[in-house]
């Protein structure tokens, strides 16, 4: 398809709106009449029961219109805990419906006032007395009470092939190491926000920040006990999601409830501090990895056991070992997932759930075993490349991991690495090179799209798909333009509205493959009409698409290889990234510019997870202590050199999608942090298995090494 507009590095079609401030995010949307402002009051105990709510001072404070709590919140549909699968984010999300406090920072009241300032001031005046109960907040301590969940996202929680214990015991070269990853917070730049406005005919329109319009639509309608047609969800621009906007939260429901009672629009925007507890987070994990190999570097054993936090009120398993099942060949295999229910906020998907943290462990373990084998870590991975899915025993749809590794090593100049740590220096800095492989499952889902053409052959595509920064607007325009053979600037793409045909939305990297497949079908149907002599004016067609049995017959993943160079300050242990390269196999790339951006973004999330991000739980209260952007560190400009490059291999996976594409939004983070960790080790000889790799931990290791040298 050399002439296709698909794949071209087009500028984003929504780019001009974004750089001029014209793109309207949920909190930017003007209401028909000036809205009232709602502010959430959150719990200050980790577990307990609300004994008393004193709202008098708040209610009489200037400008206050209402104070809502469990004492007076309207009835809503009950919450169903722990439901998994595609319906998880479509569940009812009742608010202020319980006297119980399930976690620190849970919404327990809402104050609505004329102005944001008045509502914020009055929220502080609501006095909530709780009967606090002793809660469980410590994952490590809670391990003794860990249980096996019924399911994880990837299916079965455990997998077992061969005899891991026996093989491990008899293997000459092996590693048994435990890695830990901390709580992480999505922290998209856009605060979660909703504006709710009721029309005279009893329909509520909610402008909110959601990745999944269809799920949000169902979730809000079911919570409010309204038929779907009485709820309209709009999310045209979303200021980042990363999984944190898969569910809807109290802002959407409470804005709707308050707006109904007050008879005027209500806007609720979470504070940055509230984002840490009111929205979801990535659970902390403890991961034991056992790898064993023979002298030739062939793995005999791959065992990956995971313990992870789940909110007591809503089960979710961080499937950290799931992709380990498909990564390397080995006759003896074990993966397990165990859940520790804690009285903490709800954990859920965050960019590459499972894989992002699972590969921090597995891919560092691979580096450790490669060193024991005296093998180059690239070569070690090449020697363990499976010829089919090692656990499902089905062929891979496509798998170019070998190419990723080889090309990456070549382009990065991997051969300059000295395998002995601490040998490369630049002034006071120790320089290290590290690499890791990446894998991410491909999840395509059913989708529906509509396309119209006017008399001027101007095309309008409509889907309830979202663009969370991924480039959906642009790739959908490219697919429509290509399929209909019209210029891309004659295509308008309308997204993020519950009136439009249903798609799975943005999540799990399934958005692009799912929605483009449906839009292509719609365009083909329109083309059939055109070819039959209809139109072009007033022409409309719809298309549906869903994955077929290829999902059972083939093992579908995308792959990558990361290479990183870091500098470790020999005095302080500070780690700074100097250079990073990722080579990726994600099938056909729909837009080389936006895909590259997503991959680089993912890689830099890997840098953040390796070096910075750590949402710390106060073990006494269950509160996230460092709950703002000064305390929770994400990389800033100075942490990121411009020498960060993503290379996309040419590919086409016809088992994945008729367009041959797979997702790229999550692939970049997978393995990226492990490449950093391995580079840190190569730089200074310190293995930090407890992420993130902050100066204190590196320094501690360096000081131990210095002492050992002095002895």
């Amino acid at each position, binding site marked *: 398809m050399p002439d296709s507009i698909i794949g071209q590095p087009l500028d984003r079609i929504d780019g001009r709106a974004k750089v001029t401030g014209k793109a309207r995010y949920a909190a*930017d949307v003007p209401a028909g009449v000036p809205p009232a402002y709602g502010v959430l009051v959150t719990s200050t105990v980790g577990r307990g029961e609300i004994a008393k709510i004193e709202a008098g001072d708040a209610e009489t404070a200037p400008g206050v219109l209402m104070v809502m709590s469990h004492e007076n919140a309207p009835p809503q549909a009950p919450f169903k805990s722990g439901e998994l699968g595609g319906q998880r984010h479509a569940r009812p999300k009742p608010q202020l419906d319980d006297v119980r406090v399930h976690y620190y920072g849970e919404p327990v009241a809402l104050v609505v006032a004329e102005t944001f300032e008045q509502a914020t001031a009055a929220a502080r005046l609501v006095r909530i007395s709780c009967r606090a109960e002793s809660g469980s907040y410590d994952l490590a301590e809670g391990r003794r009470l860990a249980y096996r969940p019924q399911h994880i996202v990837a299916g079965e929680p455990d997998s077992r092939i061969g005899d891991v214990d026996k093989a491990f015991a008899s293997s000459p070269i092996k590693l048994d190491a435990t890695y830990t990853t901390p709580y992480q917070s999505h922290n998209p730049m856009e605060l979660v926000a909703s504006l709710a406005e009721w029309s005279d005919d009893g329909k509520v329109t909610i402008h909110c920040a959601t990745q999944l319009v269809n799920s949000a639509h169902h979730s809000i309608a079911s919570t409010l006990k309204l038929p779907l047609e009485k709820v309209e969800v709009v999310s045209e621009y979303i200021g980042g999601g990363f999984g944190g906007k898969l569910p809807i939260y109290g802002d959407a429901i409470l804005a709707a409830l308050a707006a109904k009672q007050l008879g005027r629009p209500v806007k609720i925007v979470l504070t940055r501090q509230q984002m840490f507890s009111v929205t979801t987070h990535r659970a902390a994990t403890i991961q034991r990895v056992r790898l064993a190999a023979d002298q030739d570097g062939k793995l005999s054993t791959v065992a990956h056991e995971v313990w992870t936090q789940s909110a007591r009120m809503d089960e979710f398993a961080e499937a950290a070992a799931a992709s380990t099942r498909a990564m390397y060949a080995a006759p003896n295999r074990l993966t397990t997932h165990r859940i520790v229910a804690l009285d903490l906020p709800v954990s859920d998907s965050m960019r590459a759930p499972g894989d992002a943290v699972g590969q921090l462990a597995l891919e560092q373990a691979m580096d450790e075993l490669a060193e024991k084998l005296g093998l180059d870590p690239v070569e070690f991975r090449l020697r363990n490349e499976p010829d089919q899915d090692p656990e499902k025993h089905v062929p891979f749809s496509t798998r170019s991991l070998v190419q990723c590794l080889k090309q990456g090593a070549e382009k990065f100049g991997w051969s300059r690495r000295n395998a002995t740590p601490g040998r490369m220096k630049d002034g006071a800095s120790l320089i290290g090179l590290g690499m890791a492989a990446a894998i991410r499952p491909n999840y395509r889902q059913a989708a529906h799209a509509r396309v119209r053409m006017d008399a001027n052959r101007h095309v309008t595509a409509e889907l309830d798909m979202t663009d969370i920064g991924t480039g959906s607007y642009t790739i959908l325009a490219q697919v429509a333009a290509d399929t209909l053979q019209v210029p891309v600037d004659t295509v308008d793409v309308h997204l993020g509205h519950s009136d439009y045909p249903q798609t799975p939305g943005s999540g799990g990297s399934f958005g692009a493959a799912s929605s483009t497949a449906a839009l292509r079908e719609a365009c083909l149907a329109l083309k059939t009409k055109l070819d039959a002599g209809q139109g072009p004016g007033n022409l409309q067609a719809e298309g549906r698409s869903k994955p077929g049995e290829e999902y059972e017959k083939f093992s579908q993943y995308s792959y990558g290889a990361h290479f990183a160079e870091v500098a470790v300050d020999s005095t302080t242990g500070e780690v700074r990234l100097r250079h990073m390269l990722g080579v990726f196999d994600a099938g056909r790339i729909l837009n080389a510019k936006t895909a590259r951006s997503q991959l680089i973004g993912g890689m830099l999330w890997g840098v953040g997870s390796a070096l910075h991000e750590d949402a710390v739980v106060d073990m006494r209260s269950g509160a996230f202590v460092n709950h703002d952007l000064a305390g929770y560190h994400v990389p800033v400009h100075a942490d990121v050199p411009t020498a960060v490059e993503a290379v996309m291999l040419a590919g086409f996976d016809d088992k994945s999608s008729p367009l041959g594409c797979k997702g790229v939004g999550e692939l970049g983070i997978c393995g990226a942090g492990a490449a950093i960790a391995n580079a840190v080790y190569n730089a200074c000889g310190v293995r930090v298995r407890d992420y993130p790799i902050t100066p204190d931990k590196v320094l501690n290791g360096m000081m131990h090494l210095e002492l050992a040298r002095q002895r």
Partner: protein
Amino acid sequence: MSDSHLTRRGILGTGVALTALRGTGALAKEPAAGESPPVAPEGTMIDVGLTVNGSYRQLALDPRVSLLDALRDHLGLTGTKKGCDHGQCGACTVLVDGVRRNSCLNLAVACSDREIVTIEGLGSEEALHPMQAAFVVHDGFQCGYCTPGQICSAVGMLSEIERGMPSAATADLAARAMPVAEAEIRERMSGNICRCAAYPNIVAAILDAAGKTTG
């Protein structure tokens, strides 16, 4: 929407209709709506005159209103974003008298008589500012939420370089001219967090807009 909105709010809420603060000399430049004590009682709104993107705007504001919220909620200029409300992210960056600042950490009343430039004042979809155009070409954003702040910050930052102001990345503090270079830009732009991590593309866009080649 601002004026009628405020009046209505004043009637509906507890806000009293407003008079300008006078009598302290410092506020003498402000238009006075009548006699008033030097310090208005609590709950009183204050007249604020701001020049925003070239036009003078008169507002009556609760003194608690930040410049950010004044722009967004009272002037309908929602291009400026709230990302943290604490000066920890930079999404709210605007130019105040030509200097980049976090609008969330400024009281609107304290900005009286200042010249404010927001993203809407830099350029329009039809006539992009060179920095805006460079961000589009280099894909210097993904979700776009931090983008107005990044762009305003970049414009202010280049002017700081032009004025010879040093940064933590400046090797030679004694140098008169500051280089428009990658390390300088990365350090100077660090007050603008991009969670999508479009950082390499943003730096490329800024270098391009500054007339420097990238790479």
